[in-house]
């Protein structure tokens, strides 16, 4: 039997497989395909303080080995989530990581305080500091690292929950952003969010999604995500990383683990194969058995260099 248990600070996960925010709904939408209790953790779609209607259509567009999206953080707001969703995760003992975004630092603080009250039902918070699709609280607003630090400090003051800061490579120097986030009080980081891209309908000459640009996700993004996870883990091995970016098969997940990822988050793959998380989990387990790896710890960060040491 392979030990897939993953420890991150005080947190203990059954296995390293989780999901990327926004690809798995907010509750049990994929219950026909997924045994939620088997997952390391579930990360919710971004919750905001107030309900958000989201962007007009079209919101998505297929691209080579991936897709663009500009959903615009459509969600029913924090109150609805606390009332109707948290009890479900508590009752079924599903480790829950709540992804939150605010239009201001004050929003983030209020949400953190409200969720801290439910901390027995919540494993951690993931701060969406990098949604490319909204003006406020998105990349366009959080261009300066100072604002990242300010937001994290505000959240830290209001909760004892474990905090992951979800960062975008579009902020420039990712290593510096990670350092800044950790200094401000984040316990770990999530790397990476989508990268903004564009597609044009050549007949109508309009962008293929309403917002003009949208976040690129899917296998096309994977090498870029892998590189960031690797670089961050090389520079700061002690900082826990939830890796996401095009993880579609168990081989992809193993790649990220070798690069040093603590958790591997399956994202857009859920849209194509709703059982992707289950397939990846069993694939990783079988791989470890075949490779005679007794614990996932042996695999994590085990990259072999060409250079002689």
């Amino acid at each position, binding site marked *: 039997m392979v030990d897939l248990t993953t420890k991150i600070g005080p947190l203990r996960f059954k296995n390293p497989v989780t999901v990327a925010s926004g690809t798995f709904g907010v509750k049990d939408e994929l219950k026909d395909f997924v045994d939620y209790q088997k997952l390391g953790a579930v990360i919710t*779609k971004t919750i905001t303080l107030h309900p958000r*209607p989201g962007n007009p*259509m079209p919101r*998505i567009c297929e691209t080579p080995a991936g*897709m663009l*999206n500009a959903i615009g953080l459509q969600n029913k707001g924090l109150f609805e989530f606390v009332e109707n969703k948290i009890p479900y995760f508590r009752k079924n003992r599903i480790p829950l990581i709540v992804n939150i975004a605010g239009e201001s630092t004050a929003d983030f603080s209020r949400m953190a305080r409200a969720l801290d009250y439910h901390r027995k039902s919540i494993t951690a918070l993931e701060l969406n500091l990098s949604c490319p699709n909204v003006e406020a609280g998105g990349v366009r607003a959080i261009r300066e690292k100072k604002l990242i630090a300010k937001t994290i400090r505000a959240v830290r003051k209001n909760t004892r929950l474990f905090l992951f800061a979800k960062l975008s490579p579009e902020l420039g120097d990712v290593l510096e952003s990670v350092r800044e986030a950790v200094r401000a009080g984040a316990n770990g980081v999530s790397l990476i969010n989508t990268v903004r891209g564009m597609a044009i309908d050549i007949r109508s000459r309009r962008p293929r999604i309403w917002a003009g640009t949208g976040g690129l996700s*899917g296998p096309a993004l994977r090498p870029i995500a892998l590189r960031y996870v690797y670089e961050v883990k090389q520079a700061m091995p002690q900082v826990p990383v939830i890796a996401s970016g095009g993880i579609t098969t168990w081989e992809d997940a193993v790649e990220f683990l070798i690069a040093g990822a603590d958790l591997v988050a399956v994202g857009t793959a859920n849209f194509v194969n709703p059982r992707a998380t289950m397939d990846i989990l069993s694939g990783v387990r079988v791989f470890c058995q075949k490779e005679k790896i007794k614990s996932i710890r042996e695999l994590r960060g085990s990259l072999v260099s060409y250079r002689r040491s």
Partner: protein
Amino acid sequence: MHDETVTVLENRKVNAKYFKISFRSKHLASGVEPGQFVQIKVREGWDPFLRRPFSYYRIRGERIEILYEILGRGSELLSKLTKGDRLQVMGPLGRGFSREIRGKKRILVGGGVGVPPLVFLAERYGCDRFYIGTKSRHEVMPLSEIRKFHSRVFHTTQDGSYGVRGLVTGPLEVWFKKDDFDPEAYFIQTCGPTRMMERVMEIASHFGVEGEASWEERMACGVGVCLGCMVWTHYGWTCSCTEGPVFQFEETPPRETWAVR
């Protein structure tokens, strides 16, 4: 909801525009309502990356038939498959057309590739009148398929090569304008190009006829998690994959108002 690998039984061109693909599956064929759809991965690998939604056309026991038109790369790749090829199919998805229509008589209005799910509906629950609009006679489905419904079938073609020349909404409006037409006695179920359905809804609302329409939106997951295939309703953006694709006329305001919020 099931996701399984099926074997193609046949895949052939049935007229100038449409192809028919069939396969067998116990799970994908059971409990299906007309208007529901499947998500097909047209081939393995990541190109194309997403699945494609197709509505059910016919179910014979465990045999499922889908009538489709080549509209892009996905459907084109699908048309290249031959007997014996394997295919990943998920379904049945969405909410189909209403079976109970408050004791009213069923009027079906279909355009182009929107006709097949209505044929399924007519076959299952019957209909009083069936309006079918196509571009030309080359796209008209075999009449034998439609005649057996014992309903009045009205054909229109845009080039006049079959039935009445013009849009399908023409004869519908002519009928509604008749003195003895009772709007309370009928219920419209429509599927086809967006503009056609909007015109149908416009006429229906003008004459006070109730009904429902099957909307088609660009879709990624098909199961309500990506929030990509939204339809604007009076209660906000709504997933067409889980709450639709069929919506009551009164639920959806005119499309030109969608972007405004």
